[in-house]
Every structure is written in structure tokens, then in C-alpha cells.
């Protein structure tokens, strides 16, 4: 099989799917456009939200709102989570002390924190950051912990023989050794943060992509629903890509 063959089939399917979509919503109206939008509806919705705005703001304002919240919650959770994971992985005492509470909270899915956050902090930004924190925290801790535990004893022995201790040991031995696992955790954390934020915004928010989806659902505006979904996907994908880039920069020794 030629190398370009698979890609050609892929492109052909996507083009075919788009053509069928256009065909069945406009020329042969098998799909009810009150339930799934035609391409023209999506285009109209996209121009409306970028030019006039929808759900009280323009698109960039919603995107910025959601992104800033995710990054705030994610960064806080990762700082605390990685530090805690390093401590629990390194010291049996810290593990014995912290693990029971952690095991108790861990089975609660991130989305289940949303009602509690709203009761405590209302519909504003603080509640969103709390929920994102809860979502991102668990994978960050678990994977960092696993990374430290998976360290080869020789590395620890060699570094201690060479006199690395204290902050220098953490910075130059512990963190780099656990880095692959830490980044796995961060990737899971980021995905969980994004999903959780969208859910929290759907439950109640003033701005944000979830709020766009919510308004579009109430207005029964399928074109806008699809625009909202596409941007949820794009932003999530973009953030993951940026994290992947950071990962490659942070661990040049792993580059293929």
C-alpha cells in the first residue's frame, strides 16, 4: 500500500461526511434543521457570535473566560498536587498520614463537586476554580506519587553518595526522575479540568463556552449548539497540544 493511501481515504471520508450533511439538511431535507443545523445555520451562528455576540458577550470573551479559569485552577492544582505527590512518594510517613484522606476523596468524580462548590461559593469564578482544582488535583497527585515510587534505587543511591540533598536533591534528582509520570498526570489533569469547567458552566455561569451551550439549548438554536461544541473541542485540543510541546521542551532527553 502506498504511504499516502490511508490519508487519502481519511480525507475522502471527511469530505463525504460533510457533503452528506449538506445534502440531507438542504437539498433532500431528511434531517430536521430544528434538531440538527444545516451548514448555513452554523455559519450564521458563527458570524453572529463573533460579530454581535451571543449569551451577553462575543466569542473571544467566552473563550478567554473559560481558558483563564481552566489555567488558574489547573496551575494551582498541579502545584499543590505535584508537591503532595512528591512528598507522599518520597516519605512513608507523609504517605501514611495523607493517604487515608486522599483515598476517601478520590472516588468522588470531579463533576460531583459542582453542586457543593455552588452552595459554598455561588455561580461566580471562585466556584469554578474550586471545581477545576478538585478535578485536576487527583491525577496530579497519583501520577507524581507513582513516578517517585518507580525511581530506580541506584539513582537515589548514586545521588546521595555524590552529596545531593535537600532542595537540590528534589530539583535535580527527584523531579526529573518522576517527570514522565508527572506529565502523564498533568495531561489527565488538564483534560479533566476542561470537561469539568464546561460542566460547571452548563450548570450555571455568567460567561464562558458552557454558558454559550446553555443559552443555545434554551433558545433551541442548533447552529449555535454546534458552534459551542466545536469551540469546546478546539480549545481542549489546543491546550493539550501546548502541554505536549511543554513536555517535549522540559524533557529533551526523551526526544526521539
Amino acid at each position, binding site marked *: 500500500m502506498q504511504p499516502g493511501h490511508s490519508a487519502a481515504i481519511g480525507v475522502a471520508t471527511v469530505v463525504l461526511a460533510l457533503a452528506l450533511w449538506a445534502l440531507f439538511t438542504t437539498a433532500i431535507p431528511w434531517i430536521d434543521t430544528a434538531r440538527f443545523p444545516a451548514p448555513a445555520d452554523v455559519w450564521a451562528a458563527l458570524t453572529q457570535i463573533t460579530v454581535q455576540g451571543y449569551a451577553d458577550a462575543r466569542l473571544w470573551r467566552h473563550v478567554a473566560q473559560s481558558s483563564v479559569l481552566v489555567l488558574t485552577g489547573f496551575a494551582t492544582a498541579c502545584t499543590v498536587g505535584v508537591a503532595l505527590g512528591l512528598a507522599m512518594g518520597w516519605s512513608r510517613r507523609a504517605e501514611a498520614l495523607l*493517604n487515608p484522606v486522599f483515598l476517601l476523596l478520590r472516588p*468522588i468524580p470531579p463533576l*460531583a463537586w459542582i453542586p457543593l462548590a455552588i452552595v459554598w461559593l455561588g455561580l461566580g469564578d471562585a466556584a469554578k476554580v474550586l471545581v477545576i482544582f478538585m478535578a485536576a488535583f487527583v491525577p496530579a497527585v497519583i501520577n507524581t506519587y507513582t513516578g517517585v515510587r518507580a525511581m530506580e534505587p541506584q539513582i*537515589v543511591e548514586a545521588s546521595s553518595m555524590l552529596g545531593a540533598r535537600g532542595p537540590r*536533591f528534589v530539583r535535580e534528582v527527584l523531579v526529573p526522575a518522576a517527570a514522565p509520570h508527572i506529565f502523564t498526570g498533568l495531561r489527565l489533569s488538564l483534560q479533566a479540568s476542561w470537561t469539568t469547567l464546561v460542566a460547571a458552566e452548563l450548570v450555571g455561569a455568567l460567561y464562558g463556552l458552557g454558558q454559550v451551550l446553555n443559552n443555545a439549548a434554551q433558545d433551541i438554536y*442548533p447552529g449555535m449548539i454546534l458552534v459551542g461544541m466545536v469551540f469546546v473541542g478546539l480549545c481542549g485540543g489546543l491546550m493539550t497540544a501546548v502541554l505536549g510541546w511543554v513536555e517535549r521542551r522540559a524533557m529533551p532527553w526523551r526526544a526521539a
Partner: protein
Amino acid sequence: MSARSGQAPLPRFEATGLWLAGLGGFFGLWTLVALSGAVSAQFLPSPWAVVERFGELARTPFVGHTIQEHLVSSIGRYLAGFGLAAMIGVPLGLMMGWFRGLDDAVTPLFEAIRFVAPIAWVPFAALWFGTGIGGPVLIIFMGAFPPALINAYRGAKFVEPRLIEAGRMLGASDLRMITQVLLPASVPSIVAGLRISAGLGWQSLVGAELIVASSGIGYLMVKGQSAISTATVMCGMIAIGVVGYAIDALLRAVEAHIHRRRGRNAR
């Protein structure tokens, strides 16, 4: 070796002591703050008040049902969504692993759909299927489907080539190759995928019920939230955590069982 001292296993009494100290600290702090009156009981009930509330929810209906009935309707939806995801995802994954053309055709569409968080399907779920069973089931399906498909696909792709060659030589048809060679060979991968599916499906269910449902544990929590009853919300969180944990434990046991049996057969 001073640097390794932190890694040495603790004496049992010390480990138990620290465990108890951790748990005691958590519940102690909670009780202390709740009883001190610094935060009103409506926002932070004591652990004991949450347990009492749980008993109340089990005896008297809240928003139409007792907590057991809410749990039953959640689990019903969950099984429907997860079942559909497994029934479609696993065969499709195996077929994609076998037919190259299908793989090339489906992968770009699948990747595009997978990009969107399951919860973002909420508006369409409500519009297409309403808030009874259908809406939440679609969202659970969207959460549980990708890992089911991906792991079946990977399982099929990494089947030992000599098994495939033997099957081909013996003249097995495509259907028999998939059901009698690829499927049994990929069982461990499929089960691992279903475990991830089950977890993501359960999470998606919670999200779905917070937004598009008229019964279920998520619905109970949202109603508790609007009634500003923190104890009710916490009861919902506990119920969700316990059931989620039980589902995972069950599938872990299935996984362990399969690995044990495989180990025996291989010998």
C-alpha cells in the same frame, strides 16, 4: 544512607498511628469548624448531621423519590449507556483492527468527535432525546464509547502475527477471523478498556444528571443545591463515590480473574 531513610517501611504501630492521625485530623477539623459556629450548619453540617441526613433521605422521599430510588434510576441509565458503548465500541474496534480501509475511513471522524468533551453533548442530548432516559444515556455513551473502541482496536492490532497467519492458512473467513482469532486474543485489552469506559461513563452520568435529568443522584444533588442543603449534596457525593468505587472494584476483579485464567491456559 540518609537519603533513603524516608523510603524504609515504617514500623506497624507508627504506620497505624499516622493513618489514624490523618483520618482523625480530617474529621476532627471538619467537626471542629462545624461545631464552632464560624460557618453556619446550613453550609457546613457536622459529619454526624450528614449521616443523619442520609438516614432521612433513605426513609422519606426527596424531590419525588428516596435516595435508593434515585440511585436505581441512575444505575439503570448508566447500564443502558455503558452497555450501548460496549456493544458498539468493541465490535467496531475489532473490525477497524482487521479491515484497513474501515480504519482509515472511521479514524478521522472518530478523532474529531472524541475531541469534544462528552458533557458538551448536553444541549443536543436534551434536544434529541429529552430529559428522561435518552438524554443522559447519550452523554454516558459519549463518555464510555472512545476507550471501549480504542482498546478493542489496539487489542486487534497487536494480535500475534503467527495466529493470524495460521488462521489465514486454515482458510478462516473475515467473520471467523474477527470472532475466533482477534476477539479471544484481545480480551485483556478489551477488559482494560471497558474498565476505563466504566469510570468515564459513571462520571459523565453524574454530569448529565446535574443538567438534563428529572430523577437520579445528580438530580438529587442539584435540588439539594438549590435548597441550600449542604448535607443533601454531601449525601449525593457519598452515594456516587461508593457506587463508582464498587463498579471499579468489580471490574478489577474481572480483570484479575481473566489474567489468572490466561496464565493457566498459556502453560
